[in-house]
Every structure is written in C-alpha cells, then in structure tokens.
C-alpha cells in the first residue's frame, strides 16, 4: 500500500512526457515542417494506447501510497481516452495546419488534457480527483478559445471558464462536506467505512455527495450544469468540440462511476443517491432531446444530443448495480466510436462549406456518398437503432434501470426519449439523402480519415452483432467495482 509503484503510472507519465516533448520539438521545427507535430501526436496516442497493455500496468493494483488505483474500469477507460485522442489528432491535422500560430501548443494541450483524463480514470482519493479533473478542464478552457480572432470562440471559452469555476467550487464544497462527515478523503478508507455496521449516513454526507455529483455533472453536461454545452460546442474549433464531447465528458463519467462505486456499497447511501440521480437523468434526457429539435446548426444539435446521451448513462448510474455499471461502460466505449464518427464527417463537411448549418448536409448523399453513409450510421447508432452498438448500450442501460421497481418510471422516460431523439437524428438523415444540395461545395476527406471512419463503422456493426465481445470487457470491469450484483 505504501509503495510508490511508479510502473503503474507509465501511461500518465508518458502522456505528460509526450506533451512536453511536442512542446519542445515545436521550438526547433521551422514553420513549414510543423506538420510533423501532428504525426508525432498520432504516434504518441498509439503508444499511449499500447502502454496500457504493458503487463505490469494491465495487472492493476495500487500506487502512490493508495491514492492511485488501476482496475478493470481504469484500464478500459484509459484505452477509450487514447483512442479518442488518436481520432482527434486524425481529424484535426488540416485544422491545425491552417492555424497561423500555436500549432505545437494545440497538440501539447491535447496531450496534457489526455494525461488528466488518464489520471481521472485512476484516482483513488478526493484530492487527486479534483486536481485530475482540473487538468482536463483548464486545458479545455484554452483549447475552446484557441481561435483568438473569432468572437464566438473566445466567448465560448469565457462561458466555459465561468461555469467551470462555479462547478469546481461546488465540487470542492461537496468534498469538504464529505470530509467533514467522514474524516477522510481516501477512497480505500471510505470503502471500508461505509460498509461498517455502525456507519451513520449523516445529512452532511448526503449534501456533500449531491454537490459532488453536481460538480461532476458540469463535465458530463447533466442538467442543471448543462447550460454551457450548446454555446461552447458551437463556438469551439470543431476538433476541440469533438474532443470535448467525448474525452472530457467521459472523464466526468468515469469519476461519477468511481464516486458511486465507493459510496454505493452502502445500501443506505445508495437509497439517498438513486432518486437524486434518477431525477437529474430524467431532466437531462428531456432537456437534451427536446432542445435538439429546433436546432439549425449541426454543432448545436450535437451539443443537445450530447446532453441527451448523458441522460442515458445516468440511468445506469442511478440504478447503481453491476449491470448499470457494465451498461454505462459499454455505452461510454460505444460513444467514443459513434461520436467520433459523426464529428469526423462534420469536420470535413465544414471544411468544404465553411459553415455549420444543417443546410450544408442537404444532398451529401450525392456530393460524397461515403461520408454520408458514415454519418448515417453514426447518427443511427446515437439514436439507438439495431443492429448498431448504440442500441445494445441503450438496451443494457434501460434494462439495468428496469431491474429496480422504483425506477420503472425512468425506463418509460428513457423510451419516450428514444423516440424523440429518433426524430431529430432522422431529420438530418433525411436531409442528407433526400434533399437537393444547397451549395456546390464537395466535401472530401483524406485517406487516413476514411480508414478511421471505416474502422469505426465496422466496430459499430460488430458491437451490434456481437455485443458479447465488448461486454466481455465491460462486465468483468463492472463486477470488480464491488457494487451489488442484483438490483436493489
């Protein structure tokens, strides 16, 4: 327990080293050769992905005197984060090439944000949780405002900064309450404490946990901390929006799962948390899906859609038993491929049309059938149409909520929202396949992106036809978490 065990931190250390390495190399590269930084970042993302397979890391365990934990969930999520970063580097190459300045800094910040996400997956005490989350948040403050000359980008950065600071304060306040109620910030001690027969669930503890979930809800875009999402998604550079909609969101979720795993062991605490999380989940579902309907900007639409998707994962978290955890992990992994697929298309359509209007997508089937097909499959998976991966994820999450009788209403809310979401996703699909093109622009994607999109499509299909492959990864990781294996 008291050992440093630094070998377990290899992925995190490598991510920080890669970030600093890119920053230093940037100094020596002449302007016309800066594109090498993009290649270097892609290689770094692949190396980071592979580094989670080093036997000593994959074996798992405690490090840093028990404040760092590598378990099945941490490993799975680190791999998901590395894949996300790789996708972001693949689709951001042209965008960064066009920047007149700060190319190296873009990649540095992305890699350092990735190191923060890695840490989020492995934190085992509240102090590390806060610092790891702030590493991610602060990187995104800058990345969102990266287009300094664009008013929208700077405005988005400022909005994120203000709301992010408020939510960080809520989170810290919650942590202080929990520390006051329990006298410790270490998850290992808390895990032992909450199941002790003489443990008293005080009001302070419950208030603290509510505040912590609200603070984390900022990252996962859960109501009521969702207000920044559409504006920031619209204003941020599109590759950053893609990174934020997946990486930063999942970092929030993995922390939610971790906190739930620690406190949900106690049936008394779970009984307090479940109605609260279920209420937030239901509001998030309705807000995201109803808000998406009138949108005319694809990035705003994806912003509302990402709020709606957050609601589904909250269903599994509210259910707080093994199947909910497994469903949440499954959904998070499938979300990486689905959302990245959609954003891969958005980036290249926007490059051709120079705008993000939904009208740009009219007639995409004729101007670039391949991108159109990829986008269609991505949207259908987001909507949860069988036989795609998104369907299986929704099924698992709704199933886990169905397990506990007091959450049946939430299942109906989820089902109603599936139908609402289907409507606006299908509207985009209809526009792409049936409407005539408005602009003569012909979107093209480079070969490396085509390959990445193709692989994502295959994974979405494979995850739908053979969900047992991914479930074989998520179910053991969820079982390890120590929540009850039956609904409460």
């Amino acid at each position, binding site marked *: 327990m008291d050992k440093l065990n630094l070998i377990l931190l290899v992925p995190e250390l490598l991510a920080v080293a890669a970030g600093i390495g890119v920053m230093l190399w940037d100094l020596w590269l002449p302007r016309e050769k800066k594109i090498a930084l993009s290649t270097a970042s892609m290689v770094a993302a692949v190396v980071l992905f592979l580094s989670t397979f080093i036997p000593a890391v994959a074996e798992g365990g405690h490090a840093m005197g028990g404040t760092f934990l590598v378990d099945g969930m941490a490993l799975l999520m680190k791999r998901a984060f590395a894949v996300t970063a790789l996708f972001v580097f693949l689709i951001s190459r042209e965008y960064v090439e066009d920047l007149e*300045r700060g190319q190296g800094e*873009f990649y540095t910040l992305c890699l*350092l944000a990735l190191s923060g996400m890695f840490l989020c997956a492995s934190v085992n*005490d509240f*102090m590390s949780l806060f610092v790891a989350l702030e590493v991610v948040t602060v990187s995104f403050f800058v990345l969102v405002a*990266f287009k300094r000359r664009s008013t929208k980008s700077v405005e988005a950065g400022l909005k994120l900064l203000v709301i992010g600071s408020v939510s960080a304060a809520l989170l810290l306040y919650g942590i202080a309450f929990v520390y006051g109620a329990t006298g410790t910030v270490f998850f290992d001690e808390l895990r032992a404490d909450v199941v002790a027969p003489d443990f008293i669930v005080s009001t302070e503890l419950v208030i603290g946990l509510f505040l912590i979930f609200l603070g984390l809800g900022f990252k996962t875009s859960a109501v009521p901390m969702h207000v920044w999402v559409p504006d920031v998604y619209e204003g941020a550079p599109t590759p950053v929006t893609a990174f934020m909609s997946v990486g930063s969101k999942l970092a929030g979720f993995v922390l939610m799962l971790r906190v739930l795993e620690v406190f949900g062991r106690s049936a008394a605490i779970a009984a307090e948390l479940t109605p609260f999380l279920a209420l937030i989940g239901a509001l998030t579902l309705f807000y995201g899906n109803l808000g998406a309907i009138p949108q005319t900007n694809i990035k705003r639409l994806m912003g509302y859609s990402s709020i709606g998707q957050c609601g589904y994962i909250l269903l599994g978290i509210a259910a707080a038993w093994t199947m909910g955890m497994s469903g949440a992990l499954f959904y998070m992994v499938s979300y990486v491929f689905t959302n990245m697929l959609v954003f891969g298309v958005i980036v290249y359509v926007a490059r051709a049309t120079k705008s993000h209007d939904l009208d740009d997508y009219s007639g995409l089937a004729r101007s670039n059938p391949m991108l159109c097909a990829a986008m269609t499959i991505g949207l259908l998976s987001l909507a949860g149409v069988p036989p795609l991966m998104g369907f299986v994820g929704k099924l698992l999450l709704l199933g886990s909520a169905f397990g506990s009788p007091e959450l049946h209403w939430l299942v109906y809310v989820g089902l109603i929202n599936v139908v609402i979401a289907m409507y606006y996703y299908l509207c985009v699909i209809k526009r792409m396949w049936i409407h005539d093109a408005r602009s003569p622009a012909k979107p093209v994607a480079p070969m490396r992106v085509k390959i990445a999109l193709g692989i994502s499509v295959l994974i979405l299909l494979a995850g739908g036809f053979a969900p047992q492959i991914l479930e074989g990864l998520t179910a053991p990781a969820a079982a390890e978490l120590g929540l009850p294996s039956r609904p409460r």
Partner: protein
Amino acid sequence: MDPWTFWLGGSLALGGGLLTVTRKNAVASVLWLIVAFLGMSTLFLGMDAGFIGVLQILVYAGAIMILFLFVIMLLNLTPSGLLRMDRPRGTTLGLASAAAFIALIVAIVTGGQQWTGGQGGGSEAAILERTGEASMLEGSVLDIADQLFNAHLLPFEAASVLLLVAIVGAVALTKRKL
C-alpha cells in the same frame, strides 16, 4: 476554535467576498478581496493551522493581490472603467493607520522582552525548548510537508501538470507572435 475567532474570521471573509463582487471599481474589488483573505487567514489561525494562515496573507494578500493591482493598472482602462473610488478623509485614515502601526511595533518591542531577556535568556537550550513546543502545534511546516510528500504526493505532482497547462495556455492565448 474559539467562537469569537470563528465569527470574526467568517464575517470578514464573507463580507469581504460579498463586497468584492459588488464593487464597480476593479481596484476596490481587489482591496476588498484582501479583507476576505484576512478573514480566511483568521479562520486558519483559529484552527491552529498557523503556517497556512501566514501563507494566506504572505502569498495571496501580499503577492497575488498586488499582482492583480498591477495588472488592473496596466490594462489602460477607459475613464468609465475606472470609476472614482469614494474614499473617506485620507489624512485621518492615514494618521490612524500610522498610529496603529506604531502601537503594534511598540507592543512587539516591549512584549518581546521575555523572548530575549526573560527567564532562560537567549541560550541555545532555551530557544530549543521554546521552539520545540511551538513545532508540536498542529499545522506546522513539518506536518504539512508530511501530508504533501507522503499521503498526497499524487495530487501534489499532478498540480505541476496543471500549472504547466495553465502556463502554456496563457502564452498560447495571449502572445502575439509564437
């Protein structure tokens, strides 16, 4: 904690914070923030966290707030941005604070007699005896170092990454030519 210390520190911190966010003049906001930090520092001292309490004043009120003031003054705010501060009679306040400062020095010099000339004198053994007691107080530098470098090593190191991100970000967002 002594309830008086709690109420004094708490009301200073909250009142200062409230005035910080309600002032129209940015300089006045910064000055009220210093008051809020003094309140925080009182609370820390009340909890026997002497080192943190002193750091709160040295680092936050002393260094960071002065930096804030410099930045605000360098921003070239338009006249409408720098509203006139309504300041009470300068001479009276100045004399009052000078008197308080002199009183403080006199108190330290006369009260400090026991440290140099009192029983035990300034011998090494006497100093060790007195300081040895002081370091047993909770919240001493030793305790904080132990917490930082043992129990909370991971967040301590991760904070350095956080600072790196903040520095790179600040430069990337503000520097004209990179």
